[in-house]
Every structure is written in C-alpha cells, then in structure tokens.
C-alpha cells in the first residue's frame, strides 16, 4: 500500500515537472533515504519513514522553488547494503543528499562515500560519537549516546547510587555508552562492579541479568539499541530485580516510546536520560504526536524525531542557499542552524556538525492508561561530551 503512495508521489513529481515546462532535473532536489525497512532494525526504519512522510505532508514538497523528492531504499539492517545503495543513489539517481542510517555501522560505511562525492549525509538515527568525525559532509539530527549517558551518570551520583553493573550491546554505541557512563560515574566516586556486554543479534538477557543481580548493585545501567528494550524489561521484571530494589537507569533507548506501551507496569519507575519523550510538554510536540499517531498508527519515538528534524534541516538549508543544492553550500548552510523542534530547542554545532539539544531526565509513569516517560528535569543545550572533551 505504502509503495503506491511513493509511486504516486513520484509520478506526481514527474507530472508536475512536465507541467511546469522546465528541465526537470534542475528543479528537483533528491534525498536518498536509506533505512532498514526489514530485518532486525525494521521498527526504526518505519519510524523514520513515517516522520519524513509527515514532514512533507505538513510542509509541502516544494521549498525555495525546488521540489524535494525522497527516494526510499531498504538496507535490510545490513551495513554493506547501505553502502551499495548510497553509491547507487549518488551515481545513478544523482541524489543531492543521503539520509537515514539506522545503526552506527551503516553510517560509518557511507562516510567515505559522502566525502568522495561531496554529498551531505544526514544521520537520522545512529548514535555513536565518532560518526560525524568520519566525514566533513556528515550532519546529525538524532543524538549521540554519550549525551544521555553522562547526564544519567550525574543523576545517579546525586541520588545515592554507588554501585552499578553496566549492561550494553556489543557494538560501537554500546562501547560509547559504557565508556562515557563509567568515566563520569567513577570520576564522581561511584563504583562499577561489572561491565557486561551482550551480543547485538538475538539477545537473551536472562543469564546476563542473573550475573548482574549476583553482583548486588544499587542499579543496573543499560544500553540496548532501539527495539530491544522490551525483551530486556520483561526479563528484568521476571528476575524480580525491580522488587529486589535494584534500580534501572540508562539512556532512553530501553524505554523506547515504540515499545513502552507494551512493556507492562513493570517498567514504571525506570529513570532514564534522553532527548525526547512522546510526553514532552510543549504545544509543538502535542501537535506533532497527534499528527504522527494519526498518520502512522503508532506513537513516535526518538528515532522519528531524528527523521522529522532531519527533513526540517534539509528544508531550512535549501531555503538558506536559495535552492542551491551542492554539497558544500548545503553543509555550510546547515552548520549552526537553530530551531524549535517538537523535542525542544536544538542546534547543529557549527564546529562538529553534531547536534546540541536538551537532555531530560524522565521517569516511566502511567498517564491516561498508558505508559509514558515523564520528564522531570532538564539539562539544557548538551553538546556531545566525547567531542567536547577532545578540545
């Protein structure tokens, strides 16, 4: 069904170009959107796709006299697919911008391409700190994992948590999370009793949780990629760790809005730090959530925001360049761009091309019969701590 919509949009664009009587190629700005629509990370791809569609529906598909055409490709959650598709989009479809990238390996794989082709790559999901350093043409509208991790570490220290076991997925963002949390937490006098890494694919957390529980920590720090939080939460409750007084803290991936309504009451009380909650209290967000839920049929999660703001960034940059769509003009226009997103005020760091945004501390609560991450504290304009520390 969705395919038809894309087809329709495509043919509409073609007809529009013909009707205008201009040379079509010059008037269209093409955005190659590569996300996983199938496989392990499929839910992320669907969130981003829905958000991108919503943005175009709300803002029209024309900006600065150009038609913005989004070409969707499925990476199947496989990084080498992402690279090949990016190459094809750049070479054959002549896209002006590539975007998406659900997991870090995918984003890293396209970095050399972006540099060689001078095509801006808008990272809408992947969260490892180093990504933006790999190419001067990479901009990020999602988040960096350490952004949330250092904030939650600070919060843990302040709230009397002394001994923590960390559990992270065994890949780059996991290492980032583990490292940034541990450095900040132990630096403030906390103790990390054990650092556990679980395989990225097909995780069964039960044995790892048992191991964590046996160390008798005050809290477990958890990072799993978007989409795996549900299993983790179930097994955490099943072990009775919530009742044993072991708290659950971490960046917000584990209480992902996509899965949260499904997790059951066990999730109540989990404290996480993250840049977006569907419950974020602002008029802008209320409208966004309402429109998104209506169009997509599910609640937006933080990945959706990456897609939505990514599109906004592309539109605004085109406005600023007056429709000039070459890589260097666009990247220059994107640097330092500032706007009010449904997640709160955000900015693209002019130096690192990474995102600067508020990070909120949230607690899972039941609101109107459904679970939400309710924000109760705000840390404003947080930069990526890893890059900040390098200076």
């Amino acid at each position, binding site marked *: 069904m969705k395919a038809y919509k894309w087809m329709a949009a495509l043919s509409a664009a073609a007809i529009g170009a013909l009707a205008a009587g201009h040379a079509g190629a010059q008037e269209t700005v093409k955005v190659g959107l590569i996300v996983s629509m*199938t*496989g*392990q990370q*499929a*839910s992320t791809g*669907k969130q981003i796709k829905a958000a991108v569609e919503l943005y175009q529906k709300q803002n029209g598909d024309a900006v600065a006299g150009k038609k913005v055409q989004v070409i969707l490709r499925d990476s199947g959650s496989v990084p080498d697919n992402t690279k090949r598709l990016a190459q094809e989009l750049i070479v054959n479809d002549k896209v002006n911008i590539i975007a998406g990238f659900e997991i870090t390996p995918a984003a890293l794989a396209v970095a050399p391409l972006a540099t060689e082709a001078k095509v801006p790559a808008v990272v809408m999901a992947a969260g490892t700190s180093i990504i933006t350093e790999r190419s001067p043409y990479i901009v990020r509208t999602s988040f960096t994992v350490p952004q949330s991790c250092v904030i939650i570490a600070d919060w843990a220290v302040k709230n009397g948590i002394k001994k923590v076991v960390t559990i992270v997925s065994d890949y780059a963002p996991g290492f980032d999370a583990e490292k940034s949390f541990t450095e900040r937490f132990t630096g403030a006098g906390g103790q990390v009793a054990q650092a*556990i*890494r*679980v*395989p990225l694919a*097909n995780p*069964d957390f*039960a*044995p*790892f949780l*048992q*191991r964590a529980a046996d160390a008798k920590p005050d809290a477990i720090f958890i990072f799993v990629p978007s*989409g*795996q939080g*549900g*299993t983790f939460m*179930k*097994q955490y*409750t*099943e*072990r*009775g760790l919530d*009742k044993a007084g072991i708290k659950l803290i971490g960046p917000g991936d584990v209480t992902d809005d*996509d*899965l949260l309504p*499904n*997790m*059951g*009451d*066990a999730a109540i009380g989990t404290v996480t730090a993250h840049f977006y909650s569907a419950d974020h209290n602002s008029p802008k967000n209320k409208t966004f959530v309402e429109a998104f839920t209506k169009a997509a*049929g*599910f609640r937006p999660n933080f990945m959706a925001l990456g897609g939505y703001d990514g599109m906004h960034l592309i539109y605004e940059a085109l406005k600023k360049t007056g429709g000039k769509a070459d890589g260097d003009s666009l990247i220059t226009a994107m640097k330092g761009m500032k706007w009010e997103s449904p997640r709160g005020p955000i900015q693209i760091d002019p130096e690192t091309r990474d995102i600067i945004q508020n990070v909120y501390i949230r607690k899972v609560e039941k609101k109107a019969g459904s679970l939400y991450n309710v924000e109760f504290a705000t840390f404003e304009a947080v930069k990526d701590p890893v890059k900040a520390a390098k200076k």
Partner: protein
Amino acid sequence: MLTILFDGIAYGMLLFVLACGLAVTLGLMNFVNLAHGAFAMAGGYVTVVMVNRWGVPFFAALPLAFLFSAVIGLLFERTLYVHVYRKPHLDQVLFTIGLVFMSVAAVDFVMGSQQVFVQLPSWLEGQFTVFGVGIGRYRLLIIVICGVLTVGLQLVLSRTRFGSRLRAAVDDARVARGLGINVNRVFALTFAFGSGLAGLGGALGAEILGLDPIFPLKFMIYFLIVVTVGGTSSITGPFLASLLLGIGDVAGKYYVPTFGSFVIYTIMIVVLIWRPQGLFARPVGR
C-alpha cells in the same frame, strides 16, 4: 547456581514444545520443514491479539493459540505441503524458506515490526525463593505445562491406537500402508498437532523469547539443532536434546559470556560428526 539450572530447564522445555512437531514431521515423512517457526509465530501473535486487544484471559488464550496454529497447519498441509513431500530435499528447503519469507513480511504488514509481548496476569510475574534458589513464576508455569505435555505425548504415542499407527508409519510407511493404515491421514493429523504445539510454544515463549516478525528466522536454527541432535525416531531424543541445549545455552552465557552462542554450534557439529543420525537415535539405518 541452581537458578541457572532452573532457567535452563525452562528454556529447554520451551524449545521442546516448539520443536517436537518438527521432529515428528521429519521422522515421519522425511520432510525438512524450515517454516515450522512460522506456525509458532502465528500462535504467539494470536495470543497477543486475544489477550492484549480483546481481553481474553491468558489461560483461555493458550488452547486457542494451539487450535489456531493447528488449523492453519492442517490447511497448509492439505493444500500446499502435500505436493512437496515427494520432491527432493532441495525443493523442500526452498519451499519452506519461501513460506518463512512470506510469513515474515505478512506479519510485518499486519502487526508492525516492533516487538510485542503478552500482558500476563500479575501473579505470574516476578520470582520467589525456595531454599535460596530463585524460581521465576512464569518459568515454573512453563515447566509444568511442558512437563505435562511431554508425559501426555509419550502416553499417546505408546498407549493409544493412534500412537501405534503413527509409530508404524514412521518406521516404515510402505508396510504401514499395506497394513491398511491411512498414512496420509495419520500424517495430516500429526502435522496439525505438531503445528498446534508450535503455536502453543509460541504463545508461551513470547514472554521469554520476544515476538517480532523475524521470529521464524531467529529460532529456526534452534529447532533444527534440537531435531538433528536429538534424532527423529522418538520423542525422548528431541526432549533430552532440548534440555541439553537449554541448559547449555543459559549456563554458557552465564559462565562464559564472551563465547556466547559459540558453544551450541560447536556441540552440534561435533555431535553430528560423531553420530550423523542424532545423539539419541536408535542405531537402525533407514
């Protein structure tokens, strides 16, 4: 320590219920059904829809999940599978992989791609402690249900007329036919029953294994390991293999987390080299 053993047993029991239908299919018709997990997924999703959306009590949903998968199994067996029995193994593999791909995409279309969970009654959540051993309530339930099922299966197979027909058909379908046993019907029923068990396993396992559209692909290898290691000539073989696998997997992850699932595959290869017919198979060559 014992908690790990307990978890492993529960995991193994669950695998057994999920996989034993496959063992029978393979043993009876020498049919490689890689799509077995799809029936488990169907059972799981039906339970999710019934419990979460329609408010059917969890225990009422379990038998319904069994029925649902069994009916689907029967339907597929009669309309599609029946044409593939006589084809070479390569065709069977291709055919069933095709079914897996279709089921993955279809479920994604209907149910979305995020993981779903069954909302359990609250008294099934959490853990209690007996003599210092943490017993998960839900895992205990799994062990009880699966244990009863296993005993029941064994009794049906060894004590009933249907059971003896089935065993006869497994041993030598041609002779069984000659004796007037309607092998096709025996097989259709067994296939349906096996699919039903998978559906029940999917319903029970959703909580522990997580349920998403790629479920049949993720767990296919586990089912196959159970069957190949356990052999297909009896129920006890796959049962013991499931327990071995369950305990090995959980204990492996607990004690040597860095090796992960490595242990399982290595064990499987070694066993298959050592005894190609399976660890617990009778030594008769067929």
